[in-house]
């Protein structure tokens, strides 16, 4: 029954996104791309999918310019979808942008801390994380002002409140700030899809819980692995783990106590999926970071898994979760193309196949 009235409000959005999904590059496209000799060839191959957006690029553009234009298309499409959405779907879509906002705010905090002209930073902000009052934050000249502006002006206030004070912004490493915010964001999002009356008991709750749980676990594992050998203490590290996900709470606890790869792989062995990743990249044998037999790193495995999960989302109907999935797929596509373009530009073709294609 949950789908009965879905289409009244959100049917158009879902339809549009399904259309977008069909324009995603397939394995065949990627095959063609890997055969390219120059960036211009890549551009030509992308023309059917990206058309106008690439037209403005100069001949043989840099890979970053190419990625920028592709992101522009994603942004334009997402904005259109957002403009069409109403009610709880619109709210859902806004949640999607918060992740980018966190990055933008982290950027501005960095700039303010070093007393740079933050106006220059606006160009560097991710367009999806743009909100109307973002330029207001640039007025702040010190961290305290910035902190207050963030609380007043941004939708992220809730993520700051209670876990970070303005002194924290000054003292803590920006990465810790970012990850704290991200943890709060994930928890909030998770809460939202699980409790909102429009989503409770719908496929959205089911799908999104799974996706967000995966994201939470991935972050927890990554933070643990990356914090080895840094000044991040175990207590602080633990605060950065989102409090849900397949690994929560036992796995998280074990992760928070881990201080080498083996204990991490032991902690994640609760979940068969993650255990398989660790086995595949050989971390359990202690053969070092990310050097699997087929050149795949743990990071690649996570991306692969994420893409597969996103693909499966499209089998569900009557849910805005497809937008989330589409965005993840699209981002991966941009990364893939950037990677291929990078390989071509730098004549490192032996690893060009290292992208992730699920279609």
């Amino acid at each position: 029954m949950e789908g009965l009235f879905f289409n009244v409000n959100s049917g158009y959005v879902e339809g549009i996104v399904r259309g977008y999904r069909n324009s995603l590059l397939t394995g065949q496209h990627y095959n063609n791309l890997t055969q390219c000799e120059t960036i211009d060839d890549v551009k030509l191959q992308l023309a059917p999918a990206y058309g106008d957006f690439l037209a403005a690029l100069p001949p043989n553009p840099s890979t970053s310019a190419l990625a920028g234009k592709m992101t522009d298309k994603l942004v334009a499409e997402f904005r259109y979808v957002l403009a069409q959405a109403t009610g709880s779907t619109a709210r859902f879509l806004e949640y999607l942008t918060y992740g980018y906002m966190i990055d933008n705010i982290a950027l501005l905090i960095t700039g303010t801390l070093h007393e740079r002209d933050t106006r220059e930073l606006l160009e560097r902000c991710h367009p999806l994380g743009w909100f109307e009052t973002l330029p207001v934050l640039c007025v702040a000249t010190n961290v305290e002002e910035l902190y207050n502006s963030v609380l007043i002006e941004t939708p992220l206030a809730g993520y700051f409140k209670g876990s970070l004070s303005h002194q924290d912004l000054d003292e803590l490493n920006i990465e810790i700030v970012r990850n704290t915010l991200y943890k709060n964001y994930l928890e909030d999002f998770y809460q939202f899809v699980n409790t909102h009356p429009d989503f409770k008991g719908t496929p959205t709750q089911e799908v999104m819980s799974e996706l967000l749980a995966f994201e939470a676990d991935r972050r927890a594992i990554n933070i643990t692995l990356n914090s080895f050998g840094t000044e991040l203490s175990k207590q602080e590290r633990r605060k950065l783990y989102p409090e849900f996900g397949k690994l929560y709470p036992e796995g998280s606890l074990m992760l928070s106590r881990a201080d080498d790869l083996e204990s991490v792989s032991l902690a994640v062995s609760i979940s068969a999926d993650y255990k398989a990743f660790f086995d595949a990249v050989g971390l359990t044998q202690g053969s070092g970071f990310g050097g699997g037999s087929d050149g795949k790193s743990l990071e690649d495995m996570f991306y692969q898994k994420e893409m597969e999960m996103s693909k499966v989302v499209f089998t569900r109907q009557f849910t805005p979760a497809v937008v989330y999935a589409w965005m993840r797929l699209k981002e991966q596509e941009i990364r893939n193309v950037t990677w291929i373009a990078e390989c071509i530009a730098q004549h490192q073709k032996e690893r060009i196949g290292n992208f992730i294609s699920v279609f």
Partner: protein
Amino acid sequence: MSGAVGREAVFPTRQSLGLMKSKLKGAETGHSLLKRKSEALTKRFREITRRIDEAKQKMGRVMQIAAFSLAEVSYAVGGDIGYQIQESAKQARFRVRAKQENVSGVLLPHFESYAEEGINDFGLTGLGKGGQQVQRSRETYARAVETLVELASLQTAFVILDEVIKVVNRRVNAIEHVIIPRTENTIKYIISELDELDREEFYRLKKVSNKKQRDTAAADAEIQAAREKAAQKTALKPVKEATDAPDVLGEQEDADVIF
């Protein structure tokens, strides 16, 4: 050439001839020594040049690999970390110290890279995702920078050696083309002047001896004449003979003996 060089302003004496001769000898020794130094340096120089050429090629490769590792980072992080990196840089972890190396008396600096322990500005970069790639990229870049440092040593050595070789070659050429010919000229000059003096003296002495001979001959003739007169007188009055005999130990001087 040698005509234009001129000579040093010395008095053509035997003493200065001796001085000049030792100076010439010194110049020749110095020349051969400097020449050998220049050759040694040039050999080193060519070796360095060759190594620079190689290192530059190698740099092209390592920088490419390093740039590629950065591409991996941006793939894994899924965004731009440039700004954050720039802002979090505080203390250099990678530093160099200069050492000296002695090549034929030339001190060449040699950069040596070392890591300042305990400085880790980017330890938490990519904490959420991509951290492993960031670490790997750091290692790759650190290796690349080591190559660059090596190249910088070579290049500095190249610049210094270039300068030193120029100076040495200038000295070699100066000795070869200026000092030696000049000293030789001076020696020639002194010798010719001394010869000239000798010849003048000889001529003068010859003149003197001629005059003396003439004088002696005149004196002899006078004596002869006097004797003949005396002989005639003796014949007239023999008693006076004893008194007229020449007095060898008397007032009359001997003629100088000339050889």
